Each structure stands twice: as structure tokens, then as C-alpha cells.
């Protein structure tokens, strides 16, 4: 693979979506004004857990222009992607602060807002479950009394009736007794953090219209247009073909737009007003807590190792705080279990990974899908073990790095293709950050302490076993090609990368590839979702297949025109020609829309290239042992953070943040670097300051960007990025995918660096100066 030379792959082709964005021309979902559209506004819960005694709508109805007001009884059935446990509007009780109780539909947004505030709800408070630990107590208040009645939507979700457990995934690998007996040293580590948010800059928004023939038109800011269609179809019993979902460019997502929420409500609202188009847009406050959030976690990790540092046993417990509803939290707990050890070879593994209900806003996928969270727990434990063994944390990781010949916690056999090269990533990060075990803690002249911390990560995609994508190619009369595919452009550059894959395959210039940026489920071939760093792989393979299909057709017609066999032909630079005499050929323009002989006869028709790709050989995990295959490959990498800590006031500055990722093949270097930097930023922002603050009644005290703090421009470090390229045999040109990876190890590397600086076990997030002060002074610890 390395010896092949590419013309487009590996080049920083400018992203096709940038110019319109720079000039403010890009239209996001909410950037279109439609005459006659009705506006929906929610009334949301002010309590975290309460019975709804009554809802008084009288005053709201007095507002002029109000056309409908819906409450839970409009559709009193639970919905949800994995376990159907959440009514679109609260029924009988509320389970989190911010939960939608009613929706007002009015002629304009002001009327809808006014009426929504005039809705009067009478509550009767219930005891609030404010942490996963509380939720797991044997006498805990139940959040879902009828858990056993909920329908499991996806195989492999295991709720425990009469508890607050929405899912338990178990990993049982090897023999724990053997593992502990072989261990000279054991350490235990605990970490915890409350939920945070994605805070994509574009808040979520949806419009729905029901046409007179019953066709449901949905316009939504989503990472999964086909997924929206699937869930609307399943829960409202509408034929999938009668639903069309359109998604223009999306203003950031980070996993938070991979599930379905507003679309359900907008559909019900439109139905209530005779199918007229209804628009619902989140305010920032709603987007932060009413819509799904970034999951919280309480974790404990126990590691056993020989005195030489070889890991022998790991016992891990994850309590994911999925909040009031499970959404994809059940999948996150499963994904975290699958990769629970981090990228280390351990023969004996025991993991219980719970998705736990609390009275917090409910969680959905966040960039990394359980991995930034599990990696924080594991990497803290690795540094603790290194300290106990008195070895260099870097060497400990290198010694235990997983690789070909090892097995994962779910007992997948790893080979030279299906896992990246952890050791090479580690070696590169050492140089990048300037790691030197004897000089990693240095005091500056003004009394500040400079330290470095590292982390290692891995992740597989945890896609459904049938995750799929397709691509369709059509030709224009100028010989250029339209590429249609349902990958959503979130700013990650997916459309450009897919265009590059196509250009390389057809040996064309990227300027002759027109990638449709918008997605429409009615025209585009099916694609699961644009999540899980899986698009380059799945959609990329679909594009390659479509290109092969087009090439075959072009060569077929070309062979007639050129009086040769198709095998003797090649295609490049817009021409079909004889391999042995390239000067003898025909232009693609003359063939792709049917070849016309000088006498007017034609041969061949329109060339339309089709291709698709399905992930293969994935299996659900065994409920008792976790045995199974959760993803096609493992992307791996190493990260490091350098901080300057001020022991006087517990503040710190992040000096450097570094990532080395095994990308398989970097298709667009500049886009890849941008993804890594952006990922590091998101990870650091989360780890340094982002989280929701709850009072003892479960009320979120900071549901706005004024109080939900985000890392700003002046606080960002110098970013260092490098790549390793261990090709994935099945990947397009060897590529593995990269969207999520930059986030994963940041919290761990930062915490390790700061823990070294202040000589305390910083085991909570976010790492605010106040928290550091508490932990250093022993004034507080993880519950």
C-alpha cells in the first residue's frame, strides 16, 4: 500500500463546503423562512421528579393565534432508539428538569412562546435520584416503575425490572482468580463526573408537514436523516417510503444530533393542525437540558500486574448516568464495556457496565461514544499503577500495548489489519511532546510547576451489525460527475473526503466531482447515520463500489466504440483509452450519456454508477460473557498534555496538547489535522470546565452559555498532531476513520498531567481550580 502513489488521496484538497460558509451563504435547517409555517414552543418541567397533578391550559388558549396545544395524552406511548422508555411529551410524571410537558402551536413564535409560559402545571414532588450511586441503592426511588413493559428496540439491551438499570453489559474474559494470583501488585482507582453537553453552536431544529396524500415531509438538523425516518415510521406506523427527511448542512453535532426528539414532537404538532407545516427550534436553554446531553459516569477500575508491570487482571465497573431516559445510553454502556480495558492486552477481564437512570437530563451519544469517559477512568488507573510500580507511565503503556495476536475484552482476535499500531503511536507521542521521565515535573522561576501527562486510547465503531451506506454517480454533459450519498456534512469534511476517494478511483480532478451537500432520503441511497467515525469507511467503500460500477459501464460502451475488449481499456483524466496505446481513446463526455456515431446512431445509455457497503461479521454481545464482535476495526492513538500549574491558587494553563492517531491512511491531511485539533479542544473544554451543576432537587443551575462555561480562544494550547498509517485492508485506500478520536484521551492526559503537578489524585471532572483545591486539601472526594 505504501508504495502506491496517489494523485488525490493524501492531498489537502480544500473542503468543498468552505466558500459558502465563509460568505454566510450556507443555509442551515433554520435559515429558511416559509410563509404560513406555524411555530411550536414547548412548556418544560421545572422539577426533576414529580407527578403531574394537573395541567391548566385555559390561559394559554386565550393567546391569539394559538392553533393547538398538545400534552402527553396526544401520544401516550414511549419511544426511544434502543429501549422505548420516553414519551415525546411527559405522561403522568416528569423525570428531569427541562422535560417537555406540552407544546403550543401558534401562528407566530411570539404567540407560541407567550402561550407556553401561561401553561400552569401542578406538581407533586417525588424523591429525586441525583447520582448513579444513589440510583443503584437497593431501596432507591424507581424512576421507571414499568421498566419491564418497555419494548427493547435493539438486540443486546438488557434492562433489569424493578431497578433503575436500563442496561447491563457484562464482560467475562479469562479467569479472574488466575489473574489476581499472577499479579504481584494491585491498584484501585475511582473516577466520577456529572453530565455535560455537546453545545453545538446550531441548536436543534425541525419542521414537519403532512401532505394530503399522507406523505410526511421532515426537515431536520440531524446526523441521521434515515434514522429519523426509521423511528418515525416505527413509532407512528407510517410506511417508511411515505416519509421524506431532508437535511442541509449541520451546524455542529458531536453526537448530539444522532438521535430523534424534536421530530417526534413536530410530527404530532403538525398532525394536530391538519398537517400544516410546523417548525420547532430549540432555544439555547432548551438545547442544553431539554434535548439530550453528554453522559456522566462513576467508574471503578482495579488492575493487577506483575512486578515487571505486565497487566494480568482488570476488574471494571461503569455506572453511566444516562439521566431520565436511556436513549443511546444503553449503547454507550455496551460500547464502553467492549473496549473497557483501553488498548492494553489483558487476559483476565471482568467488567459490569451499567446504564443507570437518574433524574438528570437524559444522555445520548457524545463524540467518542463512551470512550472519552472510559478512557479517563482507565488512564487514571494506569498512572496510579505506574506510580505504585515506580516505572515510567510511558514504558508501562508500551509494555502492555495491545496488538495483533491479542484479543479484545469481547474476545475478538486482533490481526495486523483490524487494529492500529499502539506502540508506534506511543513512540511518536513521546517525541512530539518531549517526554522525559526525569524531567516531566519542572518548576519555573516564578514557582509554577510544569508537567506532562499521557494517555492511550482505542475505539471500535459499535455500529449495528447491518450498518450500511450507498452512493449514486451520475454524469453531466461536461464529463463531470455528481456524487450523491447520505453522509451528512457536519463540518468534518466528509463530502470532500468522499469526493477525493471518487476522484482517485476515476483518476479525475476533484473539481470535476460535484458532491451534493444536502441529504434527502427520497433521492439518496440509504445510510445508517453519520456517526461513530464510520463514514469514511462505510460511505467510502460505497463510493468505491459505485465508481467500479461506473467504470465497468464506461468500459463496456468504450469497448464498442474503440473496437476492443473492455479489459484492454483504462480510464483517466476524463478519457477511456487503450492501455497499450493511450493516444487511442474516447472522451468520457462522449460515452457517459450515450455514444453518438458520426452517422447519428447511438450506442449505450446514461451511465449511472451504483454502489453500497455493509459492515460485515458483526455480532451482538453474549449477555453473560460479552463474547461478540462490536465493530470491524479498532482505531488507536496516544495523546499528551503539558500544563503549567500554579500551586498558590490552584489555577493552571494548558501549554500543549498532542495527538498521534493511527488513521490507516490520511485522505486529507489538513482536514484530518483540523479534526484532531477540534477533538482535543472539545475534550479539553469538557475536562477543564464543562458540566451541569445540580442542586439537591436535581435542578440544573447552569442551563445557558453564560453559566455553562466553554473554553474560549485565549485559553487554548498549542496543538501538536501527527499520524501513523497502518492500513486497514478493508478501508478505502486503507483509511480507518478519525472523527471522534481527538477527544478520547484528553481528559485522561490532562488529569494525569495535573495530578503529577499537584501530587493529588484528581479523579473528578471538570478539573476546575476549586476542585483541585478541594482534592489537594483533602476537602472532598468522589462519593
Amino acid at each position, binding site marked *: 500500500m505504501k508504495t502506491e502513489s496517489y494523485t488525490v488521496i493524501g492531498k489537502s484538497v480544500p473542503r468543498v463546503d468552505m466558500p459558502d460558509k465563509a460568505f454566510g451563504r450556507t*443555509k442551515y435547517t433554520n435559515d429558511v423562512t416559509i410563509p404560513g409555517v406555524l411555530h411550536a414552543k414547548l412548556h418544560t418541567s421545572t422539577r426533576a421528579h414529580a407527578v403531574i397533578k394537573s395541567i391548566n391550559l385555559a390561559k394559554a388558549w386565550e393567546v391569539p393565534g394559538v392553533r393547538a396545544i398538545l400534552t402527553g395524552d396526544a401520544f401516550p406511548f414511549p419511544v426511544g432508539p434502543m429501549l422505548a422508555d420516553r414519551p415525546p411529551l411527559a405522561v403522568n410524571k416528569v423525570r428531569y428538569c427541562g422535560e417537555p410537558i406540552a407544546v403550543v402551536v401558534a401562528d407566530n413564535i411570539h404567540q407560541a412562546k407567550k402561550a407556553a409560559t401561561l401553561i400552569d402545571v401542578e406538581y407533586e414532588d417525588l424523591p429525586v435520584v441525583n447520582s448513579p450511586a444513589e440510583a443503584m441503592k437497593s431501596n432507591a426511588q424507581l424512576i421507571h416503575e414499568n421498566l419491564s413493559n418497555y419494548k427493547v428496540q435493539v438486540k443486546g439491551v438488557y434492562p433489569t425490572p424493578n431497578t433503575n438499570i436500563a442496561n447491563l453489559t457484562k464482560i467475562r474474559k479469562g479467569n479472574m482468580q488466575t489473574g489476581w494470583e499472577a499479579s504481584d501488585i494491585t491498584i484501585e482507582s475511582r473516577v466520577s463526573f456529572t453530565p455535560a453537553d455537546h453545545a453545538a453552536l*446550531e441548536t436543534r431544529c425541525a419542521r414537519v408537514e403532512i401532505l394530503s396524500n399522507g406523505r410526511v415531509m421532515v426537515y431536520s438538523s440531524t446526523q441521521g436523516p434515515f434514522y429519523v425516518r426509521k423511528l418515525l415510521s416505527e413509532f407512528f406506523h407510517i410506511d417508511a417510503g411515505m416519509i421524506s427527511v431532508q437535511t442541509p448542512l449541520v451546524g455542529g453535532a458531536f453526537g448530539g444530533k444522532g438521535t430523534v426528539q424534536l421530530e417526534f414532537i413536530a410530527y404530532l404538532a403538525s398532525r394536530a393542525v391538519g398537517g400544516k407545516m410546523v417548525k420547532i427550534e430549540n432555544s439555547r436553554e432548551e438545547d442544553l437540558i431539554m434535548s439530550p446531553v453528554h453522559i456522566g459516569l462513576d467508574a471503578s477500575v482495579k488492575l493487577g500486574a506483575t512486578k515487571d508491570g505486565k497487566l494480568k487482571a482488570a476488574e471494571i465497573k461503569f455506572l453511566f448516568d444516562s439521566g431520565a431516559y436511556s436513549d443511546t445510553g444503553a449503547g454507550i454502556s455496551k460500547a464502553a464495556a467492549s473496549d473497557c480495558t483501553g488498548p492494553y492486552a489483558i487476559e483476565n477481564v471482568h467488567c459490569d457496565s451499567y446504564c443507570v437512570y437518574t433524574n438528570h437530563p437524559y444522555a445520548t451519544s457524545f463524540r467518542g461514544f463512551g470512550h472519552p469517559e472510559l478512557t479517563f477512568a482507565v488512564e487514571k488507573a494506569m498512572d496510579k499503577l505506574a506510580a505504585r510500580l515506580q516505572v515510567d507511565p510511558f514504558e508501562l503503556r508500551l509494555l502492555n500495548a495491545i496488538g495483533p495476536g491479542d484479543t479484545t475484552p469481547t474476545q475478538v482476535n486482533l490481526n495486523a489489519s483490524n487494529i492500529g499500531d499502539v506502540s508506534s503511536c506511543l513512540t511518536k507521542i513521546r517525541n512530539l511532546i518531549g517526554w522525559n521521565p526525569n524531567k516531566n515535573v519542572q518548576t519555573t522561576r516564578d514557582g509554577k510547576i510544569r508537567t506532562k501527562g499521557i494517555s492511550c486510547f482505542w475505539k471500535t465503531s459499535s455500529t449495528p451489525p447491518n450498518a450500511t451506506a450507498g452512493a449514486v454517480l451520475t454524469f453531466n454533459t461536461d464529463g463531470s460527475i455528481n456524487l450523491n450519498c447520505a453522509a451528512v456534512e457536519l463540518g468534518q469534511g466528509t463530502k470532500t473526503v468522499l469526493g477525493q476517494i471518487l476522484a482517485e478511483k476515476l483518476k479525475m480532478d476533484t473539481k470535476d466531482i460535484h458532491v451534493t451537500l444536502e441529504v434527502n432520503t427520497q433521492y439518496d441511497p440509504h445510510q445508517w447515520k453519520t456517526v461513530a467515525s464510520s463514514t469514511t469507511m462505510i460511505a467510502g467503500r460505497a463510493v468505491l463500489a459505485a465508481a467500479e460500477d461506473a467504470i465497468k459501464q464506461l468500459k463496456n460502451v468504450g469497448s464498442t466504440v474503440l473496437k476492443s475488449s473492455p479489459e484492454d481499456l483504462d480510464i483517466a483524466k476524463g478519457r477511456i483509452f487503450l492501455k497499450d496505446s493511450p493516444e487511442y481513446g474516447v472522451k468520457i463526455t462522449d460515452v457517459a450519456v450515450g455514444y453518438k456515431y458520426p452517422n447519428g446512431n447511438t450506442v449505450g445509455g446514461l451511465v449511472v454508477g451504483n454502489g453500497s457497503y455493509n459492515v460485515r461479521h458483526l455480532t451482538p454481545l453474549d449477555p453473560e460473557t460479552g463474547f461478540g464482535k462490536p465493530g470491524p476495526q479498532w482505531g488507536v492513538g496516544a495523546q499528551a498534555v503539558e500544563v503549567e500549574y500554579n500551586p498558590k491558587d490552584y489555577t493552571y494553563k494548558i501549554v500543549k496538547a498532542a495527538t498521534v492517531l493511527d488513521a490507516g491512511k490520511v485522505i486529507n491531511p489538513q482536514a484530518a489535522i483540523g479534526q484532531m485539533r477540534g477533538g482535543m479542544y472539545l475534550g479539553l473544554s469538557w475536562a477543564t470546565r464543562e458540566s451541569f451543576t445540580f442542586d439537591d432537587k436535581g435542578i440544573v443551575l447552569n442551563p445557558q452559555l453564560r453559566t455553562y462555561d466553554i473554553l474560549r*480562544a485565549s485559553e487554548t494550547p498549542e496543538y501538536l498532531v501527527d499520524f501513523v498509517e497502518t492500513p486497514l485492508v478493508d478501508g478505502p485506500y486503507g483509511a480507518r476513520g478519525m472523527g471522534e478520536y481527538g477527544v478520547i484521551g484528553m481528559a485522561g492526559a490532562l488529569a494525569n498531567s495535573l495530578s503529577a503537578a499537584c501530587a493529588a489524585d484528581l479523579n473528578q471532572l471538570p478539573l476546575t481550580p476549586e476542585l483541585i483545591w478541594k482534592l489537594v486539601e483533602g476537602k472532598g472526594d468522589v462519593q
Partner: protein
Amino acid sequence: MIQNMQAGQLISLAINDQVKEAYVRNSDTLLYTLREQFGLVGAKPGCNNGDCGSCTVLVDGIPINSCHILSVEAVGHKITTIEGLTDSTIQQAFIGNWAIQCGYCTPGYILNIYALIQTYPDADDAMINEWLESNICRCTGYQEIKEAVKNTLIARKINE
């Protein structure tokens, strides 16, 4: 109790060197009027609370969060939105430096930076940081945005 919800007036606004008329409610923000009445949707609502800067426009050359000014207050001032920024230097710098991912923050940044460069052509790193502080970009990690600003400043100096 719900009277006056629609109380408003006919105003003229000087937007992008054109005079535009609209009937606005007294409580309409400039952001709302730009987007809903004039279709100038380059100004983005990210928070409607003055916290994110994605709604930034220039009012008499000064970057202002358009979610934090009423339309009626904008009367008599010169308003520039991304659609009316004829100098495309910064847009090109953003493209050239890959300072754009999802693009939702981009118009706000570009107007903010345009004002910075007009006001302080000699801005140093500290000044740049201070000005960028008012906006949030959730995608890029800010490095490319800073580079776009610095490169624009350098290019200006060379051209002078």
C-alpha cells in the same frame, strides 16, 4: 393581559448600504429582524443571550451581538452583515487557513475580525485573543481562526 404583544412601528434601517423598511415589534431584536424580515440569515442565533457571538454584525463599524440590540435601537446607524461585507480578505483567509468546520460561527467571527483589523491594524496576540474571546467556535479549537487573523494582519502590512 396579552395586548401589546404586537405593538410596533415602521422603521427604516441602513443595512449594507441600502435603506430597508420594515414593520417591527418594539421588542424585536435586530437579529430577529435581519433574519425574519430581510432574509439576512448570515447572522446566526447561537444563544440569543449575548454569550456566543454568532449573531455578530457591525453597527457603525463596531461588532455588536445583534441578539442584544433592539431593531428600533438600530435606526440611524449603519449596519453591516456578512452579506454586505464587500471586502473579502478575511473570508479568503478563513478558507485558506481552514478556519471553518461546521461554519455556524464563521460569519460572526469574520465581522468581528474585520472590525478588529479596521480598528487595530497592529493588533498583537493579546489583543487578538481578547477580541476573539467574545465568540464561541465549537468545532475548530480556535488555532486556525487565530492563524487566519494573524495572516491577514501580516498580509495587510506587506501590501501597505
